[in-house]
C-alpha cells in the first residue's frame, strides 16, 4: 500500500525529471522499482529521534559470522540501522556479513594524559589543544558539553591525516544510472602533534592537505591546498590551481553549505561534521548501538536498487555517541543534523541532516573504515590508476577511510566514493616543501 508520503516522493520525482513523463515503458518499470523502495519508511527528524530512543535488547544482536538478509529486517536490521536509512540499506538480495565487535587500540601514547593545558570556552570551542591525544577520553552523559566533547574527539581522532589517498567517486541517479565519475588523489599530513609540530615553526597549523584531480580530463591537474589551524576560530586557508588558468587562486572557506562538483554532500558534511562548532547548538542524545562498516575487508561493492550502498560487506554492531547539531543560522539548509560517532574509535559511522523547510531527510552519509592492522591479513584493493604498498599501513594502529556513501534524499541522488589509503609519514623537510604555496604555482601543465 502506498503511503501519503511515498506519493509525495513520487510526485516530486516526476516534477524534477520531466523527461520521464514522455519516457519509455522501461522508464516506467524503473520508476515502479523506485516506488517500491520509497514506500517503506518515514525519513523525518521526529522519526529518527524516536528510533534513537528505542534501544534494541541485547538478545537481538546478530551473532558474528551471521549474514543478514531482508528477512532479518524486523529482528536485526531495523533496530540497528537508523530509520531514515532503511529504504536504502534494506533491500531484496542484500547480504550483510556480521563480524565480531572488535576492540581497536589507538596508537601508542594516544591514551595518555594530554600535555598542554586546554579547555572548552563558553561557545564550546576547544582552546589550547595541540593534538597527539584524544582531548576528552571520558565522556559523561550528564555533561552539558558532552556533544561538543564527542565532536572534538572525532575532529582530533588518530589517523585523520598522514596518507596518500587515491579516490574514485561515482555519482548515480536512481536505478544505478551513472551520471558522473571522477578520480582524484588526496595527500594529507597532521602538523599538530601534541608536544611538537611536524614542521617546527608551524605550531599554529593543525593539518595541511593537497588534493588533485585525475579525471575527467577537463578537470585533470586541478588541485587544491587547504590549511587548517589549531585555532578553531581561524578559518581554513585554501588555494586552487586550475591548469586552464596556470595560476593559483585563493578560495573562501566560510561558505560550507553548497553542493560542489555535482556531489551529494556539502562542505560541512565531511565525516559527519566539518563545520565550525560555534555556529551550532549542541545536544548529546546518549549512546546507541548501530551497524557500522568499521573494519571492512576491502572497499565494498555497491548494491541495492540504485547501487548506492555497501553490499556483501562486513559490518559490526558498534556503540556510538549520538550528537544532535542545530545550525544557528536561519538560512542554513539544515534544521537538524544527527551524527553517530563510534564510542571507542571516535570515527563517524552515520550522519543524517534534515531539511529546514520540512524536517524531512535531506542528506545522509555512511562511512567505510578499515583498521590498519587488518592489512597484515587482508589487503584492500588497489586504485585503478596507481599501485601502493599497503603493507606499510600495518603498525599505525589507526583507521583508514575506505570510502563513503552520500545520499541526497530529495533529489534523489547519491555519491559513492572509494578511497585507497596508504599511510605516509612525511619528514619535516618534505612536508615543508610539499605543502607549500610554491607547490601551487604550477601543476601538470
Amino acid at each position, binding site marked *: 500500500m502506498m503511503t501519503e508520503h511515498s506519493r509525495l516522493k513520487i510526485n516530486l520525482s516526476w516534477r524534477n525529471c520531466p523527461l520521464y513523463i514522455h519516457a519509455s515503458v522501461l522508464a516506467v518499470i524503473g520508476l515502479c522499482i523506485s516506488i517500491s523502495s520509497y514506500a517503506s519508511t518515514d525519513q523525518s527528524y521526529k522519526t529518527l529521534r524516536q528510533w534513537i530512543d528505542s534501544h534494541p535488547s541485547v538478545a537481538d544482536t546478530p551473532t558474528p559470522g551471521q549474514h543478514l538478509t531482508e528477512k532479518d529486517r524486523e529482528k536485526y536490521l531495523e533496530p540497528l540501522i537508523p530509520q531514515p536509512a532503511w529504504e536504502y540499506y534494506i533491500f531484496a538480495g542484500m547480504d550483510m556479513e556480521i563480524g565480531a565487535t572488535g576492540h581497536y587500540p589507538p596508537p601508542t601514547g594516544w591514551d595518555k594524559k594530554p600535555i598542554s593545558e586546554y579547555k572548552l570556552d563558553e561557545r564550546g570551542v576547544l582552546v589550547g589543544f595541540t593534538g597527539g591525544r584524544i582531548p576528552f577520553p571520558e565522556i559523561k552523559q550528564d555533561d552539558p558539553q558532552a556533544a561538543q566533547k564527542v565532536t572534538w574527539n572525532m575532529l582530533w581522532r588518530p589517523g585523520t591525516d598522514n596518507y596518500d589517498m587515491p579516490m574514485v567517486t561515482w555519482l548515480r*541517479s536512481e536505478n544505478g544510472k551513472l551520471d558522473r565519475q571522477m578520480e582524484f588523489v588526496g595527500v594529507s599530513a597532521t602538523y599538530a602533534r601534541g608536544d611538537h609540530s611536524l614542521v617546527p615553526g*608551524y605550531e599554529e597549523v593543525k593539518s595541511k592537505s593537497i588534493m588533485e584531480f585525475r579525471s575527467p580530463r577537463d578537470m585533470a591537474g586541478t588541485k587544491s591546498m587547504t590549511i587548517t589551524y589549531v585555532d578553531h576560530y581561524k578559518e581554513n586557508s585554501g588555494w586552487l590551481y586550475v591548469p586552464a588558468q*596556470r595560476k593559483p587562486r585563493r578560495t*573562501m572557506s566560510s561558505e560550507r553549505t553548497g*553542493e560542489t562538483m555535482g556531489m551529494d554532500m556539502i562542505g560541512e558534511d565531511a565525516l559527519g561534521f566539518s563545520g565550525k562548532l560555534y555556529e551550532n547548538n549542541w545536544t548529546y542524545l546518549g549512546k546507541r548501538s548501530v551497524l557500522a562498516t568499521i573494519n571492512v575487508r576491502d572497499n565494498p561493492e555497491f548494491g541495492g536498487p540504485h547501487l548506492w550502498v555497501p553490499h556483501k560487506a562486513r559490518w559490526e554492531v558498534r556503540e556510538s555517541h549520538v550528537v544532535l547539531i542545530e545550525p544557528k543560522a536561519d538560512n542554513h539548509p539544515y534544521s537538524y543534523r544527527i551524527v553517530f560517532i563510534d564510542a571507542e574509535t571516535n570515527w563517524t559511522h552515520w550522519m543524517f541532516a534534515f531539511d529546514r523547510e520540512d524536517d524531512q531527510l535531506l542528506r545522509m552519509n555512511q562511512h567505510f573504515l578499515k583498521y590498519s592492522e587488518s592489512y597484515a591479513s587482508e589487503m584492500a584493493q588497489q586504485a585503478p590508476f596507481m599501485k601502493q604498498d599497503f603493507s606499510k599501513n600495518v603498525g599505525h594502529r589507526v583507521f583508514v577511510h575506505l570510502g563513503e556513501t552520500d545520499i*541526497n534524499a530529495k533529489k534523489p*541522488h547519491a555519491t559513492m566514493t572509494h578511497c585507497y589509503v596508504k599511510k605516509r609519514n612525511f619528514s619535516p623537510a618534505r612536508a615543508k*616543501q610539499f605543502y607549500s604555496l*610554491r607547490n601551487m604555482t604550477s601543476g601538470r601543465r
Partner: protein
Amino acid sequence: MIRQQKQAALAGLLLGTLFFTSSSWGIVNITDNLELEGFVNAKNVVRATNFSNGDLIMQRNTAQLEGKYYFLRDSTAFGRFSTGRLEEATLTVIGRSVYDSVYDLRDSYDGLEGKSESKIREVFVDMVLPPFTLRLGRQQVVWGETDNFRALDVINPLDLSWHWSQEPWEDIRIPLWMARGIVDIGKIGPFEETFVEAVWVPTDFESNKVDTDPRYPWAFYGAGLPKVADSVVIGDQLYDLDVTVRDLSPSRKLRNGQGGFRFKGIWGDIDFSLNYYYGFSSSPGVKVRSDLVEIDGSTLHTVVETVNPRTHVVGLTANYSEERFTQSVIRLEATVTKGIPISIEPGAPLGIDPEQDQFDTVSQSVIMLGLDRPTWIRPLNKLRTFFISTQFFWRRYLDYSSHYQGVSSVVPATIGGVTVPDRFMSLNNNTPDRDEFVITFAASTSYGRAGRWKPTFVFAYDPRSTGAFNKLSLEYLWSKHLIFNVQQNLYWRASGDEQGPWSIGDMFGRGDNRRNETVFNITFQF
C-alpha cells in the same frame, strides 16, 4: 612504405591503449611512468551581425595530446641511477593539431591561407631539488591576480589572430623557451609560505599575433571599414599608397633576453607578491620614417618600422579572504609599466615627438580590484552557490599628451569632400583618454542532479565609451568523455561612438561589422 605502416601501427596501438584501457581514464596510465591525456574538439562559430543572416566563420577542429614521463623518482633516474639530492624529474609534452575546415567550405575564403597548425606547443622538464624547483623548456608562465587582462601576465604573448581573446588564454598564449626556478623559503620574519621565483627567457621573443587582413573573420582593422588603406590624399591630390614594413622586433640573441623575479608570501592573512619583469612590449609600436617618404608619380612610397620597445614592469599583487563581513576573496593587482609604445599624431611639436617618427614610449599604471564570492541565489538554485567574480580596472597614462593617438581606422578616400570609389585611406582621430576603466562581472553555477548543466554569464563594460560585451554559455557534460557547449557572444554599446581601448562593444559592436556570434562546441576527452 614500411615506415608509414609502422607509424600507422604505432598510432593504432596508442589509440587502442587510450580508448580501451578500462583501468584509468582522464589521465591514462600507459605504463607506471608514462601518462597521457588529451581531447579532440570541434568548434563551429556562426556570426550573426544583427541576429540575421548567420555566417559560418569558423569550423576549427582541434586534437591535443599531452604526455608526462616520470623518469626520475625518489632520487633514482630511469629506475637505475642515483641522482643524489635531485629527488624528482618529469618530462611534459603538449602537442596540438588544428584544422579550420571553414576555409575549404566557403568560397568567399578562397585565396586565404587556412588556419591550421600542428606543433609541439609546450615541452618542459620539471626538476625538484629541494628547496629548489626548476622548469626548463617551452612553457607558459602566468603571474598576477587578474583574469583575461594584461598587467603582470605579460611573460607570454597572445595569439589573437583566430578568435581574438575569446578563447581560454591557456590556448592562445604563445609558449616561450625559458627557465623558471623557484626557491622555497617558508617562514621568514613576519611572512609565511614565502618563495622567490625567477624567470629567464634567454633568446625567445614573439609579438602578439594579430591578423590585419580584413578578409579573415577575426582580423583587427580598427574602428573603420574592413579594408586595406591603399591611398593617401595630399592637398587635393590622391596618391596610391605603397607602405614598406620593416620588422625590427628583437632578434634571437642573448642580449635580447627577458627575465624577472617575484617574491611571494603571506603576511597576516594577506597573500601577496612583489614582481619585476624586464621584457619587451608584446604589442609592437610603429615608427614612421618620414625621412624615407618618396613620391614617384602617382604613388607615395613610405617606410614604417615595427618595434617592440624594452619594458620594465613593476607590480604588486595581494589577495585576502574576508570571511566575516563580505565572505569574499578580495584581489588586488597594481603595476607600473614603462616602455609601452604609443603613436603620436603627425606634426606634433618637437617636445612631444623629437624624432618626428610619430612614435614614443609611455608609462602606464594599472590597478585592478577584484572580488570572488560563492553566493547563494536560492530562487535560482537551491542546491549550489553561484560563483561570482568581478573586476574593476583603472589604467592611467603616467606621462600623457593630447597628441597621443589610439587605433587608426580605414575610411573611404575623399577629395574636397567627394568620395573616391574603391579607394581607401587611413585616418586616426582617436585620442586615448588619460584614464581608462573597465568593469567585468562573471557568474557561474551548475544544475541537474549531478551538476552536469553549467551555465556561465559574463559581462564587461567600459563606462567611458559605453562599449560592452556579454557572453552567455551553457555546457552539458553528456558523459565522462563527451562535453557539449553552446555560447552566445554579444557586442554592444549603450550610446555614442567614442572608441575605447578594450576591444569590446565600442570596437566589435559597430554596424555591419558587429561580431555577435554563436559558438557550438563538442569535445571528446580521453
